[in-house]
């Protein structure tokens, strides 16, 4: 019996005592799309004349993007956003769906919207050339980068 009491006290003593959450904010509204060559699977840099994110009456346009990594925001007021890519005289789109949930980290940190359940509703790309890697939109606050959500092969 005395061992049981001692065990209970050890459980009490070994548990965390901090009341406040750490302000490590991982919420992000940015979808990370990495671009690759479909032949050798190496990163591919493409010059986009413009990329738009539109949904619920709002359109956001990014001009002259030249990168192998794209960070495109989803509309926080809805659950679908259409990404339109204008490049090399062509225009393609991906419509993504997602769910959002609000989390309060701590009063000193605030409330944030977290996006999850990312999916592809429709696209003009060849579906076999799009790979869904991660369904949650998250930012690593230590490395200061976003997790890869989609891989797009050209």
């Amino acid at each position, binding site marked *: 019996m005395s061992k049981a009491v001692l065990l209970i006290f050890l459980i009490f003593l070994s*548990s965390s005592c901090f009341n406040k959450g750490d302000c490590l904010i991982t919420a992000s*509204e940015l979808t990370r799309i990495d671009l690759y060559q479909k032949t050798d699977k190496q990163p591919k840099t493409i010059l986009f004349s413009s990329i738009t*994110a539109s949904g619920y009456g709002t359109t956001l346009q990014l001009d002259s993007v030249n990168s192998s990594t794209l960070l495109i925001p989803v509309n926080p*007021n809805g659950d679908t956003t259409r990404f339109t890519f204008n490049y090399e005289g062509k225009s393609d789109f991906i419509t993504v769906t997602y769910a959002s949930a*609000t989390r309060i980290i701590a009063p000193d940190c*605030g409330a944030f919207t*977290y996006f999850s359940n990312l999916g592809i509703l429709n696209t003009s790309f060849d579906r076999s050339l799009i790979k869904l890697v991660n369904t949650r939109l998250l930012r690593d606050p230590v490395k200061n980068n976003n997790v890869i959500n989609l891989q797009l092969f050209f």
Partner: protein
Amino acid sequence: MLSTCNFFFSLLLALVTTVSAFAQDKDKSADTLKNKFLPTGIRLGTDVISIIKSRMGNNFSGWEANADVDFYRYYATLDYGNWSRHDVLTNGDYKNNGTYFRIGVDCNFLLKDPDRNMFFIGFRYGHSTFSETVNYTDSASNFGIISKSISNAGLQGHWGELTTGLRVKIWPGFWMGYTARMKFAPGVKGAGALAPYDMPGYGLLSKAPYWGFNYQLFWRIPFRKAKGALRGK
């Protein structure tokens, strides 16, 4: 940090009491009580910390009523309380409101104390019914400043607790004491787009285990006079 120090001081006190309690348990010779599992009275109480927090602060309002009934060394306990909280966030505000109850059993290790002083270890099952709302602004959005108001209504939550504490008789019929709680395994049903944040009776849901501490006043209403050494008026 102050609450952590208080908690460990209380644990130390409880540990010292445990040693004396077990020393007392070794004397098993004189248990002459008949019908020892029949209850002899009900103790009704309230939590002083909830009352003080409600008066002193502006972000918490609540109260808690407690009752226990003795069955020899075991005490059936029931707690019922109300809890509402208003936190100012860096980008908005959060409010909740709800009621909760806990039901459980305490095992008293000061069985032969004539004043019904207690050092106990126990277990509780807690249940909470509550609603919550957050209003906040996201100014970092690429789509401009986003203002949101999100609510969860009619949430049902539950958790478990390991408890320990003391009850000390101050006057005839009046006890004071504390209960320290290690709350664990919280669960909430019915949440929508807002991840439940603070559950009445439990606290911050992101913390498991989570600590609780009550300082309580008790008044005892005897049913019948205990035979033997106990003097429980």
